C-alpha cells in the first residue's frame, strides 16, 4: 500500500494529532488556577523577627504549645527525654558580665545557606525557592547527618510508630523533622501557628524582600541580630532585644 502525502494532508494529520495530545493532557492537568497552584518563587523570602523584649516567658510557652497543637508532636510515649522531638524550644541565654538572662524561642532558623541541605545524601533536606527549609520525608533515610550539621540543634528524629497525625503534618518513625515555618499555612496566605499565638508585635512574620512589608521596614529601623551570625548562614529568623 502506497500513499502519497501532500503538504495539506500532512498539516491536517498533524493538527488532528495535536488535538489528541492536548485533550489527553487536559485530563491530567489542573483545571483551576488559585494562588496555591503556582510554584513558589525566589522573589520572596519568608522570615520572622522575634523581639525578646516583647515576649514574656508565658508568650514563649504559648508559642511552643501552639506548635505542638498545630503539628501534633510532643505526645510520643516511648521516646526518652533525649529522643523527644523539639520543633521549637525555650532557650535561656545569660550575659556573663551582667548576669542578665533572656529567654528566647529557638527553632529552625531557615538559613539561606543551610548546612543541613549541604550534608544530606539523598536531597531530602531542601530549601524552597522562598527560603523555607524542609525535610522531604519521602526521601529521608534517617541518617541524621543534618541533625549533626545544624548549629541550632533544631532538628529531631522520630523514634517510634505514630498514629492519628495531623492531616497537614504527616510524621513517621525513622525520619527527621523540624519547624516547617508552617508551610501549609503560609501557602494559604496565613501566618505560622507560633506567630499567631503571640499576636501583637512580639513576633513579626513576613517577606524579608518586600520593602513594604512590616518585617522589612522594622528590620531597617531597629537593631537586630542573627544567632551565630559568625557562621554567615544568613538566617531567615532574626532576633532583637538580645
Amino acid at each position, binding site marked *: 500500500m502506497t500513499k502519497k502525502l501532500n503538504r495539506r494532508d500532512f498539516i491536517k494529520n498533524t493538527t488532528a494529532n495535536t488535538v489528541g495530545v492536548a485533550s489527553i493532557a487536559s485530563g491530567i492537568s489542573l483545571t483551576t488556577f*488559585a494562588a*496555591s497552584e503556582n*510554584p513558589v518563587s525566589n522573589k520572596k523570602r519568608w522570615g520572622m523577627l522575634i523581639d525578646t523584649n516583647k515576649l514574656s516567658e508565658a508568650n514563649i510557652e504559648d508559642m511552643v504549645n501552639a506548635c505542638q497543637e498545630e503539628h501534633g508532636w510532643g505526645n510520643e510515649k516511648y521516646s526518652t527525654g533525649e529522643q523527644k522531638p523539639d520543633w521549637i524550644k525555650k532557650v535561656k541565654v545569660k550575659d556573663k558580665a551582667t548576669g542578665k538572662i533572656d529567654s528566647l524561642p529557638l527553632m529552625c532558623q531557615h538559613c539561606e545557606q543551610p548546612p543541613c541541605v549541604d550534608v544530606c545524601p539523598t536531597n531530602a533536606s531542601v530549601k524552597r525557592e522562598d527560603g523555607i527549609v*524542609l525535610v522531604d520525608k519521602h526521601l529521608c533515610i534517617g541518617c541524621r547527618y543534618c541533625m549533626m550539621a545544624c548549629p541550632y540543634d533544631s532538628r529531631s528524629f522520630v523514634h517510634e510508630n505514630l498514629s492519628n497525625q495531623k*492531616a497537614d503534618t504527616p510524621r513517621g518513625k525513622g525520619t527527621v523533622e523540624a519547624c516547617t515555618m508552617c508551610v501549609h499555612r503560609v*501557602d494559604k496566605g496565613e501566618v505560622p501557628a507560633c506567630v499567631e499565638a503571640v499576636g501583637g508585635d512580639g513576633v513579626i512574620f513576613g517577606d524579608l524582600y518586600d520593602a513594604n512589608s512590616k518585617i522589612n521596614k522594622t528590620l531597617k529601623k531597629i537593631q537586630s541580630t542573627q544567632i551565630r551570625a559568625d557562621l554567615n548562614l544568613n538566617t531567615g529568623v532574626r532576633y532583637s532585644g538580645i
Partner: protein
Amino acid sequence: MRHFPIILLALMFTSVFAHGNDGHINLGDKATELKEEGKSRDIHPSLAEIRKMHPEFLLHKRDQTLRQGIRSKRNSLKACVDCHSSTKNDEYLPINAPEQFCSTCHQKVGTSLDCFACHRTTPEEEL
C-alpha cells in the same frame, strides 16, 4: 474486523479492574454520594486512568507540593482520604484498613503502601 475495537476495549477494562467480589468497590461515603449525583467525571476525568495511573499522579503531586508549594486538591493524598473514607458507628474507619478504599485493590495485587505510616488515615474534621 469491525468487532476488533470492542474486543480490545473489553480486554483493556478487565485487565485494569481489580474489583471486590461483588463487583463493587467500597468507594467511601462522600465518593459514593458524588457518584450517585453523577459528579464522577468532574473529579476523575477517566476512571481507567485513575485506576492505573494513581501511583504516578500521587508521586508527582507529592513533589510539586513539597518542593514548589502547589496545594491544589487534584491528586492530593489528603483529598483522597477526605473523599474516599467510610464511616461506621459515627466514626471514620482508617482508609488503609482491610476492605477500605486504599486497601482492597492493593490486597488483591499484593501491594503494600508505607504512605500511612506518616499520613493521616481518616479525615480530620469531626463527623
